């Protein structure tokens, strides 16, 4: 018996819902709820995490991310300008840097600056400096590509108009091109901050004192000290969302605003 197109669509929808229900049911049945209750959702024992998760973990995550972003933004701008330079050597250096730091895991960069550089140069850096440099160097590679795209999205006539008014190249870039590029890259730049927030957790590979713990390290510490299984890590994860979801919303707002003003 032939079905109409509408009937076929309805049957297909029922089948999809059926598959979804079976998959969720299988997952629920497969989980060992007693153990999960004790070691993942054991909220009764996490009292001691407060208020230090705010005063230490959240605070340090925000500080590390901010420092990494400041270094990443300045380095990224420099690299983006180098990549657009008429001078080939600058372009090669920038391209090499960007490809390298986008290509290796951020974790290895943290290990290199946390352990390798102190060994190689016989210096002892403090944790804040290491995190600032490691995170900043990785971030600058990603931010450079974002900014380069933004700079290239500014119409060529803007630079020509500025130069025609007698502005030297650098002044035309600073006063005319870069402000417009930043407006264009605001949404992707906000996404870079989200990535940085999460990458700041990689500092756990370094030896930290308790006051230097950020959210992830703070959560891992809770695992060993509270006897609530993985629950502290779940709490730490929730704190990341508290930072990243508003940033996501902000990025979306920037996006819709720039879409509105576009002619």
């Amino acid at each position, binding site marked *: 018996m032939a079905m109409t197109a509408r009937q076929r669509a309805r049957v297909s929808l029922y089948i999809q819902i059926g598959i979804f229900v079976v998959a969720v049911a299988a997952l629920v049945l497969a989980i060992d709820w007693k153990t999960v209750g004790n070691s993942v959702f054991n909220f009764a024992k996490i009292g001691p995490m407060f208020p230090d998760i705010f005063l230490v973990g959240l605070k340090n995550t925000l500080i590390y991310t901010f420092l990494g972003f400041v270094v990443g933004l300045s380095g990224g701008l420099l690299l983006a300008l180098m990549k657009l330079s008429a001078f080939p050597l600058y372009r090669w250096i920038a391209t090499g840097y960007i490809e390298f730091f986008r290509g290796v895991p951020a974790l290895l960069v943290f290990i290199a600056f946390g352990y390798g550089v102190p060994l190689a140069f016989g210096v002892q850096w403090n944790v804040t400096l290491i995190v600032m440099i490691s995170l900043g160097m990785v971030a600058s590679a990603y931010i450079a590509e974002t900014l380069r795209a933004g700079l290239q999205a500014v*119409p060529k006539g803007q630079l020509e108009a500025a*130069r*025609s008014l*007698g502005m030297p190249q650098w*002044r035309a870039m600073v*006063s005319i091109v870069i402000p*417009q590029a930043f407006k264009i890259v605001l949404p992707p730049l906000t996404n870079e901050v989200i990535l940085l927030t999460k990458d700041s957790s990689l500092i756990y590979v370094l030896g930290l004192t308790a006051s230097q713990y950020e959210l992830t390290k703070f959560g891992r510490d809770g695992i060993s000290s509270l006897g609530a299984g993985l629950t502290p890590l779940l709490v730490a994860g929730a704190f990341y969302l508290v930072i990243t979801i508003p940033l996501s919303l902000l990025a979306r707002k920037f996006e819709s605003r720039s879409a509105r003003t576009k002619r």
Partner: protein
Amino acid sequence: MNDVVNSSSGSTGTIHAAGVSIKDLRKSYGSNEVLKGISLDVAPGEVVCLIGPSGSGKSTLLRCVNLLEQPNEGAIHVGGFEATDPDVDIDKMRRKVGMVFQQFNLFPHLNATANCTIAQTKVLKRSQEEADKVARHNLERVGLGHLADRFPDQLSGGQQQRVAIARALSMNPELMLFDEPTSALDPETVGDVLSVMRNLAKEGMTMLVVTHEMGFAREVADRVVFMDGGVVVEEGVAEQVISAPTQARTKEFLRRVLDPTHIEIQE
């Protein structure tokens, strides 16, 4: 130069006009030679219109005058500057040369006043107060004093182009270059832009204008230069070139431009 007199010239409308001298100018893009030896003199205070079919090199010629394009051969003198001298201070020369683009190229992140003040404060080092005064004067001069706070996307094409003219005038240029200033405009706003340019010509500004507006060329230009294929085909008094051209190519071009709906009927 006396700075007080010079800076107040913006408000009194006094123009120190400069001349242009172009000798045997050649410009190629790869193997494509766009300008094949152009010579052209523009006297201080003179208005010269460059006309010709698209691709004839007239915009490239204009852009060579303020070095937005680098000529390959030949010499250009603008005011006291030799533009083609490799050691010329390009930025200093460009202060004397106002440029108006087909696409306006206003700075979209700045309002009309700030578009007119930014180069004054950053390049000429005028105080913000003085720059604002000059900007206001020039916006009034183009009939837009009441829209000084608007941003470019809040203005019509014709209004944007008039702000672009005010922006150029705020630098007290001695020469103005116009690159098809009305080609991107809605027909009903063309007249406002042309009348601003007409007034500027009356005030004695040296103007080099690439245009397809034959009525404007005939009325305002002292001289008209017809270019085709990278050479000057014909030049002379505006009325004579437009009404009684001597060259076949000029006649053919003007016939098409002045009567675009003309259809050859062949029997």
